[in-house]
């Protein structure tokens, strides 16, 4: 299994967690950050099933959501699901790192969440 390559940024001055990167802390304007990695499973914050996909996606639909990791990092990712019936806000998701799209024949890697029961 591939490691999750996401890096989040915790402000050294006030502790606020940022993802994606900001040059200055959104809370205190600090410029020094400690790089932190997502920890554990993630809780589903919201999601949608998109049927009208953008250029580059040759499939019928795509589930996309935002989830919060155990250490507070929030990130968007694709969701491995065939139907939205079993997806519930707040449910636990296992994060994986895999190809989320292909550009010029090359895979682009990103977060894919797998619902945990």
């Amino acid at each position: 299994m591939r490691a999750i390559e996401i890096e989040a940024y915790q402000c050294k001055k006030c502790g606020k967690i940022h993802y994606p990167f900001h040059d200055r802390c959104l809370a205190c304007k600090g410029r020094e950050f400690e790089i932190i990695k997502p920890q554990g499973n993630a809780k589903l914050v919201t999601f949608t099933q998109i049927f009208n996909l953008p250029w580059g996606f040759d499939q019928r639909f795509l589930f996309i959501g935002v989830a919060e990791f155990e250490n507070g990092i929030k990130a968007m990712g694709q969701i491995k699901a065939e139907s939205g019936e079993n997806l519930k806000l707040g449910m636990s998701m296992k994060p994986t790192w895999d190809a989320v799209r292909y550009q010029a024949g090359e895979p682009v890697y990103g977060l894919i969440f797998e619902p945990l029961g």
Partner: protein
Amino acid sequence: MAGREHFRDVAIIGAGMIPFGRRDEDSLMDMLAYASLNALDDAGMGDQTVDAVYVANMGGGILQHQTAIASSLVDRLSLLPAAAETIENGPASGASAVKNGLLAVASGYYDMVLVVGGEKMREVTGWRATDFVATMTHPLAEYIYGVTLPGMAGMFTRLYMERYGVTREHLVGVAVKNQEMGGLNPYAHVEMAITRQGIFDSPDSVVNNPPVADPLHLYDACPVSDGAAALILCPLEMAKKAKKPAVLIAGFGQATDTQTLQEREDPTDLKAVTLAAQQAYEMAQVKPGDIDLAELHDAFTILEIAESEHVGFFKKGEGGKAVAAGKTRLGGQIPINVSGGLKARGHPVGATGVAQVVDIVFQLRQEVGKARQVKNARTGLTVNFGGFGNNVLAFVLRRVDS
């Protein structure tokens, strides 16, 4: 804001647009030119020039492979040697161009300014157009996943429904109302009235109104449109001498928010909408209750409901119920999107913010015809929503009788 007391009052003396829709016969430059000429003619300036031109356009570089659009337009319109630039601010480009025109005249630097917004989106496939609009999302944290603007709106809607009790019926109410108004607007892209039965109640609704980004369905989303709209701005004192009633830009506000939804403390809180409206109200010295009609950025039905709450027309959680009670219809407590809104007028992204102001100008001048006219309308509000609420502009417009 510091120094505003030195500003001149700025008014709109010309407004014009072209019908939105699929305009295969016209290039982007054609549309910008036609709308500009309509505004110049409306201002009675058919053979005159202006000091500066602000052109709102989001996608010319991507969709038409054309840049420096403002330079090309002033040449085509024989407005040389007017100052000219293109303003790009995503789907809020139109209001940003109006703002730049406003500040240029308010400062005293220019007297006569043309603001025009346009977009040609239908010459590419829906697949490409969806991708073009998605380029405003974060390249690494959002775009790569295939998220679209309807997708962002779908995720927002799910949270809003969960937290504030908005229902699909409320959303359907917005769609039916706005398409009914679009049918009365000769400039609207969608002129087909729809029924609640056709898109919600009947068994056929499953086919007629499929999901596009669950829980949003086809009729919750605005169409992809071609179109352009234009305004002529000048000092209020000059506008008072014109034949038509002047419309004062009484208030203006703009605010930004985080690029990604997930970094907002409360993703259902559209802070930039609240702040932009508050600034505009404060400058115009009005309250939400003083507004006679509003053009809100309903790229998705949920946004009309959420914005109606964030600009202070209704309390949080009351916007959906207000639609169901008819409070936002023509003749209701606060008529919203009597133009048809983005939902029916269409959403050529660079044109929308200008078109919203044009619509309010026509209303305040009592020019839209009885079926769509808000009686005794004197003060209007516009909200132009960029990104997913990360760059929002609001204007308060007021009729001034000389």
